[in-house]
């Protein structure tokens, strides 16, 4: 693979051709907020947090779905971008009932942390306060729509890694919901293998282990690397 040279925030950077811009930013240690992106899953480009400015292009681009190109000039933290990222996070907090204080993921939540990092300390939009259900019918896991940000990591991991495609999204727009099979109680699903991958990749408290209470839930994504290394490279590294 050939190497391309690009400029990121006024610094010359070399990268492998075919890499996504987001991967390069991460390698360089540039902090890029993300929510729908998760290494090991296909990219969705839906949360719009990793938007960057490309010189010569009037449109902003999501770094997770943009491939690096020779002579690309990238700005990742302009005033405008930071302002938009804050607004997007505000929109997410206003959309459903994200009450951090009483959430199982308090302290470990990606949404909570992205907001803190960027300095989103209040929400200017009207809280929509939708009346949403919880599904605790599965013997080991719980689904709480109040905390879901529709990143679809659960849908993708179940489809791409587990191969069961239990999850999908129903409806559209603000009425979208993640669903199990025919929008049925999780405990009644015949396709679910109870592997728990969806729970582990969920960035918020929308999916958690039954029995976890406030601030007790922690998630780990290492298994994705482990599975993919095994599949792609026939390497099973038990370290870490």
């Amino acid at each position, binding site marked *: 693979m050939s190497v391309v040279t690009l400029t990121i925030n006024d610094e010359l950077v070399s990268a492998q051709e075919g890499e996504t811009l987001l991967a390069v930013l991460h390698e360089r240690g540039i902090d890029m907020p993300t929510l729908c992106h998760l290494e090991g899953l*296909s990219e969705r480009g839906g949360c719009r947090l990793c938007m960057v400015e490309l010189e010569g292009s009037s449109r902003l681009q999501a770094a997770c779905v943009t491939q690096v190109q020779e002579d690309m000039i990238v700005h990742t933290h302009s005033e405008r971008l930071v302002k938009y990222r804050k607004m997007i996070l505000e929109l997410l907090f206003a959309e459903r009932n994200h009450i951090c204080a009483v959430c199982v993921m308090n302290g470990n939540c990606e949404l909570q942390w992205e907001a803190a990092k960027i300095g989103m300390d209040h929400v200017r939009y009207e809280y929509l306060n939708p009346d949403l259900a919880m599904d605790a019918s599965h013997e080991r896991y719980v689904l709480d729509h109040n905390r879901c940000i529709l990143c679809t990591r659960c*849908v*993708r991991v179940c*489809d*791409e890694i587990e191969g*069961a*495609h*239990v*999850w*999908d*999204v*129903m*409806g*559209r727009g603000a009425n979208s919901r993640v*669903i*199990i*099979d*025919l*929008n049925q109680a999780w405990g009644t699903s015949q*396709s679910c293998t109870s592997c728990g991958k969806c729970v582990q990749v969920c960035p918020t408290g929308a999916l958690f282990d039954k029995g976890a209470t406030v601030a007790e839930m922690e998630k780990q994504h290492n298994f994705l690397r482990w599975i993919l290394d095994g599949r792609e490279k026939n390497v099973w590294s038990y370290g870490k």
Partner: protein
Amino acid sequence: MSVKTSPPSRTRPRPAAEHPSGDPRFSLIDRTLKRFSFQQDALIEVLHTAQEAFGFLSDDLLIYVAHQLKLPLSWVYGVATFYHFFTLTPQGEHNCIVCMGTACYVKRAAEIVAALQQAYSVTAGETTRDGRLSLSTARCLGSCGLAPVLVLDGAVLPRETPESALERVRQQLMNATHNGAPQPATNGHAFEGEE
């Protein structure tokens, strides 16, 4: 998403399993399945046929379609709920659609919707408790020259007012014999006036 349907290839269709319920309407679905050689990309076409045959998409139907096309249930459910055309609940005996396209809006179709909603205690998109009338709104039926437009049991009625709309619906509910069984929904195919 990585899962993909495959492009249509013109292979010989395989025979469809007979549906255990023996309901002849399933053969209509089977015909469409065969026409598209059980290709997964035909899902939307198959759902169209299923809804035309049964009036709405019950869980049973969705399961049948999912199994025939070898698609995950949640995929089929996700598609069926994404598109406005598909309905997962039974429709009323009579069907009244008020066009809310821009031209109709400018000519105050919202007042017609409000009048009907009030008169029949039903919100647009729902069916009355007694199952006699389904009221819905449409995103432009493309008859903008005739705005505001109403579609009552498949008949397009041009240049309506709240008063005339109420009268027409009243007439329609009175004239049609109340046979109890819900008639097949028109599936929004509002212009089947031809032929």
